[in-house]
């Protein structure tokens, strides 16, 4: 395979900036319909603002943050324009999220020499269509995962082509948090001291399968530079709607949600094994009074773990506050997407200074931030770098939780 990943960082913020000169500088946050942050600009992220935060949390970290609401129609139109530019190549195109997509270059390229001019042309075409504010970063490899990592490792307006012989050397030092595994699995990797893709790639297949299931085995292949997932053009097949009927009417949507999650469990397990998740869905309630209120949810990142889905849907249901008692709940129009690192922005644990790699998906970070926000620096992590040092204070140290991470 020959796969190109085209990624426009901060796509939605870039759109807002393109249309409003006053927003060109400074920290900018884009609000989703539920009031949480959909996207944070690079300046906002530098202050610690991340997607998924509430307005209050974001303002606490960045008092100068300017917030604008997302305009779904406009974003969809621009995304369609972006997809259109990629599709002009006449090749298979798979759109991942806003401002990111894959192009299957296999039919037209044989080696890196063919790819370079093609990528340059494509980059120019995207710039011409979307403007200078939305410059793409391009990454190329024989598989989707490495191509995506390559695109993330360069700044907008540049490309990184990874020949097959360099795959292991390129992927090895990148953070393991790049893997599209669920947050809990990423946290476990961190606990196990597996920080880089190189560390992960060295694990035995059997042990990875045993601990992380089929998703872990697939992730292992990705970390080793073998991505079997093809570029899938066009919309994905929508799974059948899932509906649950309750034994008795309830005014607690949480009970209905639990039943729905149980019904969704096989689908979620199947998605997780393929490193995919639910990107959005429509919830429909069947009320005792006969009404059928609806609620559309779109998630910042595709979700495949029941816990995260429960949290997101509970918040959405609480916000909707359907009146009356529920008789049943139905999930339809399930949008499926490949899991990808949150905000497509990553952190290197080492000394790498490439900006796109400095911000990471740090497992457990949300919990740490919540604790620090509530209690301040009263949580400490002990480190024992030299447990036999003759002076007590040099044996170990207590660091605040934030520093220790």
């Amino acid at each position: 395979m020959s796969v190109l990943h085209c990624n426009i960082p901060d796509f939605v913020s870039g759109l807002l900036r393109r249309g409003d000169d006053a927003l060109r500088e400074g920290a900018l946050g884009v609000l989703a319909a539920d009031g949480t942050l959909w996207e944070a600009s690079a300046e906002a992220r530098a202050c610690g603002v991340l997607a998924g935060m509430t307005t209050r949390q974001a303002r606490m970290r960045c008092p100068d943050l300017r917030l604008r609401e997302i305009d779904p129609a406009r974003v969809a139109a621009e995304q369609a324009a972006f997809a259109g530019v990629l599709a002009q190549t006449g090749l298979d195109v798979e759109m991942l999220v806003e401002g990111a997509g894959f192009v299957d270059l296999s039919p037209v390229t044989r080696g890196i020499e063919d790819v370079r001019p093609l990528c340059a042309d494509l980059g120019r075409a995207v710039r011409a269509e979307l403007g200078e504010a939305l410059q793409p970063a391009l990454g190329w490899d024989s598989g989707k995962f490495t191509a995506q990592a390559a695109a993330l490792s360069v700044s907008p307006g540049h490309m990184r082509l990874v020949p097959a012989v360099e795959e292991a050397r390129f992927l090895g030092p990148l953070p393991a948090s790049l893997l599209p595994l669920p947050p809990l699995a990423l946290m476990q990797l961190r606990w196990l001291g597996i920080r880089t893709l190189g560390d992960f790639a060295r694990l035995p297949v059997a042990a990875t399968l045993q601990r992380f299931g089929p998703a872990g085995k697939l992730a292992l292949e990705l970390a080793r530079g073998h991505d079997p997932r093809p570029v899938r053009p066009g919309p994905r097949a929508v799974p059948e709607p899932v509906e649950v009927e309750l034994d008795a009417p309830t005014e607690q949507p949480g009970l209905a949600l639990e039943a729905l999650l149980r019904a969704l469990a096989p689908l979620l397990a199947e998605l997780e094994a393929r490193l995919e998740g639910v990107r959005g869905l429509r919830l429909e309630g069947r009320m005792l009074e006969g009404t059928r209120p609806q609620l559309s949810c779109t998630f910042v990142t595709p979700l495949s773990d029941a816990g995260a889905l429960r949290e997101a849907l509970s918040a959405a249901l609480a916000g909707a506050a359907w009146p009356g008692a529920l008789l049943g709940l139905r999930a339809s129009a399930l949008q499926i997407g490949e899991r990808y690192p949150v905000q497509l922005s990553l952190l290197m644990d080492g000394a790498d200074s490439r900006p796109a790699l400095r911000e990471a998906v740090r497992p457990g970070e949300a919990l740490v931030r919540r604790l620090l926000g509530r209690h301040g620096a009263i949580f400490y992590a002990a480190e024992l770098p030299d447990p036999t040092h003759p002076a007590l204070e040099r044996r170990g140290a207590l660091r605040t939780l934030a520093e220790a991470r």
Partner: protein
Amino acid sequence: MTHAWPDGLPIQVETLDEQGAPRAFGWRGRNWTVERVVQRWMIDTDWWSERGRLRRFYVAVITREGLLCALFHDPEGGWRITRVYD
């Protein structure tokens, strides 16, 4: 329970014996008289470290009041108490 202060707490030492250990020291508002020096040792380490060289003279003493504690003398920080054993 043994109390430990990794950085040590400053103590007031007025007089030393022939081998350089305190005869008495002031700590927490009272005077403690050293009845017996149980152990003495020196460390000179970390001259290669960014955190700086450590040269210290440690003594473990028992006071007349029955306190078993470890004291150290640092050329820069003076005398400090670092442990009280229970």
